[in-house]
């Protein structure tokens, strides 16, 4: 009985859903505040993301009469649950995750793809023209950034010779400086993560001046609140995944120091994302795809090749 309660506690409260909501809103605040300060603006107060969420949750849901109400309603919940579920398999500040099995790295990657697909479904079934163009764009973009992201993350797993994130953490604790070999993959994955989170310069699916809000155009009220929360949580999950895969140092510390180090890693990734979106203009979808395939994929391939060679030389 207590084990069930403990499991429920860890899924719903810490380090599960509630923790994700709090850190997600915190990350949104840091992102917005930093973006504003870099642009010479004042920026929002710390509670602004929470206030936005509460306000949206209190509003009426409007579903366009042309839209398919079931799909329109399911898509945000599907996106949120996928983003939250993927978090349970990522080791945060220790060598172990909440749940772990061999092959969980693939599960996490696929679960992180689901929100994008859910955005597509929601946008497509809302039948608004802007939403349709936006949702088609987000799927087009998916094919461009997903390949380098997978290759970047899997090259790190290749070096550790395991398909489990927790075992990877163990490996990198045993071989402390091996994460340095994956820095190119880290760079590729950070850029690909910008595409996944649909942030500038890859905010093409929701380019305000072209397609209004893209796939989210018709969403309002609670459903829109869930979508916004999903993106915040995705940011935390993505940053945690990158931190676990590419910055696996200091994992053997005691819980408090480990938690501090983990927060620092995630914070620096969130700040890096905010910085990138401050200094870059939005790309066009064709430019984005050619950029991903022409530059990111070759770099990720080189990383894979380099890791194969390193493994052959050092791990005999």
């Amino acid at each position, binding site marked *: 009985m207590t084990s069930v309660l403990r499991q429920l506690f860890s899924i719903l409260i810490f380090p599960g859903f509630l923790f994700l909501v709090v850190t997600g809103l915190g990350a949104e605040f840091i992102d917005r505040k930093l973006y504003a300060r870099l*642009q010479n603006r004042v920026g929002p107060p710390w509670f602004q993301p929470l206030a936005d969420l509460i306000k949206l949750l209190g509003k009426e849901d409007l579903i366009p009469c042309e839209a398919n109400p079931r799909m329109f309603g399911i898509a945000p919940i599907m996106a949120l649950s996928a983003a939250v579920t993927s978090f349970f398999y990522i080791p945060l500040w220790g060598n172990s995750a909440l749940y772990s099995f061999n092959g969980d790295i693939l599960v996490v990657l696929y679960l992180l793809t689901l929100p994008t697909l859910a955005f597509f479904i929601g946008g497509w079934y809302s039948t608004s023209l802007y939403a349709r163009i936006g949702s088609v764009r987000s799927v087009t973009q998916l094919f461009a950034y997903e390949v380098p992201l997978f290759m970047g993350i899997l090259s790190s797993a290749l070096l550790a010779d395991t398909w489990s994130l927790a075992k990877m953490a163990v490996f990198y604790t045993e071989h402390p400086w091996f994460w340095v070999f994956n820095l190119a993959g880290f760079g590729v994955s950070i850029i690909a993560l910008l595409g996944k989170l649909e942030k500038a310069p890859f905010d093409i699916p929701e380019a305000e001046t072209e397609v209004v809000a893209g796939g989210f155009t018709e969403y309002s009220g609670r459903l829109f609140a869930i979508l916004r929360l999903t993106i915040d949580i995705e940011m935390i999950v993505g940053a945690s995944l990158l931190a676990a895969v590419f910055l696996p140092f200091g994992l053997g510390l005691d819980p408090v120091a480990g938690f501090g180090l983990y927060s620092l890693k995630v914070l620096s990734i969130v700040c890096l994302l905010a910085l990138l979106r401050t200094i870059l*203009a939005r790309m066009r979808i064709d430019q984005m795809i050619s950029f991903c395939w022409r530059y990111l994929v070759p770099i990720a391939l080189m990383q894979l090749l380099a890791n194969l060679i390193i493994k052959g030389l050092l791990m005999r």
Partner: protein
Amino acid sequence: MHDPKNKFRIPMGPQHPALKEPEGFSVALKGEKILGVEIRLGYNHRGIEKACEQRSYVQDVYLIERICGICSHTHSTCFVQAVEEIAGLIVPERAQYIRTIIGELERIHSHLLWLGVAGHEIGFDTLLMYSWRDREIVMDILAQVTGNRVNYGMNTIGGVRRDISKDQAADVLKAMDLLEERTKYYIEIATQETTIIKRLKGVGVLSHEDALRLDAVGPTGRASGVRRDVRADDPYAAYGKLNFDVITSNHNDVYGRTLVRVKELMESYKMIRQALKDIPDGPITVKAPRNIPAGEALSRYEAPRGEDVHYVLANGTDKPERVKVRAPTLANVQAVKHMLRDRFLADMPIVIAAIDPCFSCTDRMVSLNEEDHSHLLRWDELRAYSIKWHRDNMSIDFSGLNKKLMDRIK
């Protein structure tokens, strides 16, 4: 919504985040490619030309100033120039210089505003925030010199209403130094930042021949190598006495238009410095007659967006017989359709923004096609139609009320 052959037709406007004013663009799309664009004017028609005929010349100066929120000095100067020509007034030289200085300050604020909007349209909000912050410097100067940030109320028939004092001139010069430094930074950004260049180069191409054929004016034309600038070709106010270059570019695209505008900013700083140095002492206005003698005049003015033309027909009374305004956007909006051919949807906002459109200045009454079963109604016909509609559909009879109202008017 769905045409055969995967054709999509999406409305950009009259309400759309890319547009700052209501204007209809109906875009036919295939995937992300634009097949064709239909432009519809007329969402913001205010009937200013007609209203001018019912007001005196002095009142018209203020009404005309409100045609545009950005180039307000442009329109009022253009109008008073025409009236002064009909009345045969010789405007004092100091007033000419003051008009020039305000005109150039206005150009600076308009171009900085445009730079920010262009940044926003390509998703580069940092540029928007920076350039609008710096625009506040020139807005403060305008408020200090004229008393207002936007509608300056400087012009009157026969001169200007306010003088520029020594202290104010010193403040203007100080602001020019600050702005020049900032503009150098923007030129650096525009010519070196990769993502900006990628989004601007080769987008919205308007060849030299097309620019001439479609009558592009202002920075839009000058970026296609059309060396036309009213300030140099047909000098008005004090421009004949100032040294400046007409900035042109041979890029023919949005990138060229950006370069022309940021470099024109540098020319404006130069002109303002020279004008403040050379400004002669003397009166700032001459007395204008209340009734303007019969006659007509056409006045040209180089607005920040291109050539602005006003035509005034006077009939000897204190009210004009006819006022005609052609704002620069009307000359340029034809070119937009041409520039968008075979481009991507993502280029549409920046291509539209690159002509620096001002739709409310451009809007005019368009009589629609007979094919649409539409027809023109006179005011009394519209009233009669409205009364009939309410009686038939809503069971409300307004005819008694209408009769009472009509009696009172009589």
